[in-house]
């Protein structure tokens, strides 16, 4: 059940109405059932995997809290191994086998190839695994009390708005909210709807229109070159941003209608003046997870200069692998790690400047550095990524931009203009307060305006959200 489907609109409507009609004590059951239904709309059998890890983490949490000394570490290890084991099996097994087979072939060994697993990746596996791990680690660190209510803990992992593509929540932020009695608040409900409509606009109008152009160029990269490929990469940068942040906005909005607040996941990342700043604004729930549980666990910046750089690169490489089992994601993470280390080494972008032109230059450079990494993220293979980069710098007919379909090009330009207007003039100045209900006229204009834009310009048979595959 995709957020950009009529099926979801009906599901959301029914779940929300029932939520406010039933007494507080039954709401967790209602939300839990709804979340299971939501998950089962993809591959029903995989919910058993979720139940398995939920049970392990629930028990581990209680044991960690009750145990003393080395036993605490043992229960933490059991929980982490179980979570990472499931992730490794479903996500990385075939990648591992592929590399083993390649190695066998390279060495010319006369042995049979190791067979691949023919299974589908459970949807949103990386997201809910990290969220579950976050709970166990926080209990271990003493920052969170173990949840004794299995139903509420299950809801923490399964809560449908953020189940398949985040934000990757922390137990301190969410668990207590499930205990609070939520009353229907008109302002919250309207604000939530406004955020949902904005998220849907970003997905179906901006991201999906850009996707048509990006796919047509990237799928025929052999015959495209120069500015066409560069422009398609710019478009992909905004496609993935609108796709993922659009999903997050719908998730945050859907939760907000019911009175729940989830963490912000994006904060205008392409206005960043350095890659370090970019990672504070892009997929914030993942970058803070990586920082809190990986980078700091590796020693962070307390272990000397060179080890700090190593930690940064290692964290980003593992962050890349979190996205997918492919060398392209490893390179994507590695490049980001190099950027972060270089910035730390040089301290260049720490210079605060009031000059508009200089700041614009910093934004320009950062955007292009990020775009370089997106080539590896979008390409289907390392060979293709290198081919695209090679064709991109070909000087012959460099400025010859291939527009493809003029109607689609005009549509995506129009959608992009609206995105920039709203983000630069409204969200940049007011943040998420933009979704707060100010007046009836404002809310009605926002809801009706974006609904009409979605009907007129939305891609009705667009792709699923990119981050669903992770």
């Amino acid at each position, binding site marked *: 059940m995709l957020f950009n*489907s*009529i*099926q979801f609109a009906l599901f959301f409507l029914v779940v929300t109405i029932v939520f406010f009609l039933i007494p507080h004590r039954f709401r967790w059951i209602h939300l839990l059932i709804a979340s299971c239904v939501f998950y089962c709309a993809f591959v029903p059998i995989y919910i058993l995997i979720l139940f398995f890890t939920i049970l392990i983490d629930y028990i581990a949490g209680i044991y960690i809290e009750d145990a003393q000394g080395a036993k605490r570490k043992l229960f933490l290890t059991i929980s982490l191994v179980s979570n990472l084991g499931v992730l490794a099996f479903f996500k990385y097994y075939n990648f591992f086998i592929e590399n083993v087979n390649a190695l066998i072939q390279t060495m010319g060994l006369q042995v049979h190839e190791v067979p691949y697993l023919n299974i589908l990746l459970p949807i949103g596996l990386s997201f809910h695994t990290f969220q579950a791990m976050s709970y166990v680690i926080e209990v271990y660190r003493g920052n969170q009390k173990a949840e004794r209510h299995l139903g509420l803990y299950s809801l923490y992992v399964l809560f449908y708005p953020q189940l398949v593509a985040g934000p990757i929540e922390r137990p301190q932020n969410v668990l207590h909210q499930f205990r609070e009695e939520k009353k*229907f608040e*008109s*302002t919250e*409900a*309207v604000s939530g709807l406004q955020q949902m409509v904005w998220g849907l606009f970003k997905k179906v109008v901006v991201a999906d229109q850009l996707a048509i152009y990006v796919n047509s160029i990237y799928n*025929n990269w*052999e*015959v495209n*070159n120069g500015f066409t490929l560069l422009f398609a990469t710019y478009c992909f940068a905004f496609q993935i941003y609108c796709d993922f942040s659009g999903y997050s906005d719908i998730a945050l909005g859907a939760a907000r209608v019911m009175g729940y607040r989830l963490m912000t996941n994006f904060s205008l990342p392409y206005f960043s003046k350095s890659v370090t700043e970019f990672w504070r604004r892009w997929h914030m729930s993942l970058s803070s997870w990586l920082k809190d549980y990986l980078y700091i666990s590796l020693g962070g910046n307390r272990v000397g200069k060179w080890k700090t750089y190593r930690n940064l690169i290692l964290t980003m490489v593992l962050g890349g692998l979190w996205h997918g089992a492919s060398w392209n994601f490893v390179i994507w993470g590695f490049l980001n790690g190099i950027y972060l280390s270089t910035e730390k080494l040089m301290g260049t972008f720490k210079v605060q400047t009031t000059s508009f032109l200089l700041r614009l230059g910093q934004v320009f450079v950062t955007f292009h550095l990020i775009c370089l990494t997106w080539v590896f993220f979008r390409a289907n293979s390392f060979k293709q990524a290198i081919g695209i980069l090679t064709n991109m710098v070909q000087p*012959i*007919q460099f400025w*010859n931009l291939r527009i493809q*379909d*003029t*109607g*689609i090009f*005009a*549509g995506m330009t*129009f959608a992009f203009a609206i995105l920039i207007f709203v983000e630069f003039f409204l969200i940049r100045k007011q943040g998420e307060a933009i979704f707060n209900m100010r007046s*009836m006229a404002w*809310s*009605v204009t926002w*809801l*009706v305006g974006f*609904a*009409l834009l979605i*009907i*007129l*310009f*939305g*891609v*009705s*048979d667009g792709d699923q959200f990119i981050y669903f595959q992770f």
Partner: protein
Amino acid sequence: MRKFSLIFLVSVVLLIVCDRSLGLLFDYFYKHTKTGQTGGKINYYLSLPKTPEWVVMGNSRALYQIIPDSFARPTYNLCHAGMHQIFQTGLLTEMEKQGKMPPLILLHIEPGEFLGEQFNRDIQNLKYYHSKNEWITRELNVLSSYEQVKFLFACYRYNGRVISLMKNYIQTMRAPYASNGYMAIEPTFTDSATTIYSLQQKLPVAAENMNEQQWNYLNEFIARCRKNGTQVICFTSPIYSYHQKSNPGIQELESRLQKLQVPYINYLKKDIPALQLKASLWKDRHHLNHTGAQIESSVLAKDVDEILRQPH
């Protein structure tokens, strides 16, 4: 709760009012548009006082390559870029409904289209005819379980084509449109380089099994033509530096057309020597420029004449 209900109600009412009003406005623009690929060209053809004797239908490889003036009879090029068979059949049903069937249709087909994946989403380019044309409505409704719900919005019929519609409307208003439907790609000095460069792209290998649903669209097309006394001749344009190898799928397609007594001229097999290996006549590997189009059109005209001269 009261505040929310009020905002919700006002929003819903306003959305309905705006949707209906915009729907009417776009209807007006659409009906008066006589140029472009978002319906204008169809409108122009349907509004012609006298139906041309021959009509060319197909995708961009016929739109940019078949010059109607090359034929002995009054001909109109009703091709639409990027459109597969479902679109052509949908368009034909509307021509049939409006009594605008010509005596002969030259239908450009891509053999690979009938052997590979499904291409039924092109019918969305005929959304305007939803609820107006039974066949198109049925094909649109099967695209997804909720397609009919989307059509509750009057504006949805113009989804994705508002800007093009406005552009084409303004163009129609500024200069009255009179054309034979052909769109020329003017030759440029970079054509050779672009065409040779495009050889880097590998052509997809045609599947060996027929896609029955795709075939059904073509079969329906032929059956409707026959019912209206329209003769169909199928043809396929050449591809630069490519000669099609036969496979069971292609043979099956040819044999089915033969069984239906539909002549098929396949320039992927029957080379046009003047076009092969002359990169300057091409825009890219799949499309000829105007100079190349003149050659293909004259060859096709001769081949069609020859077919028509044969006793039935």
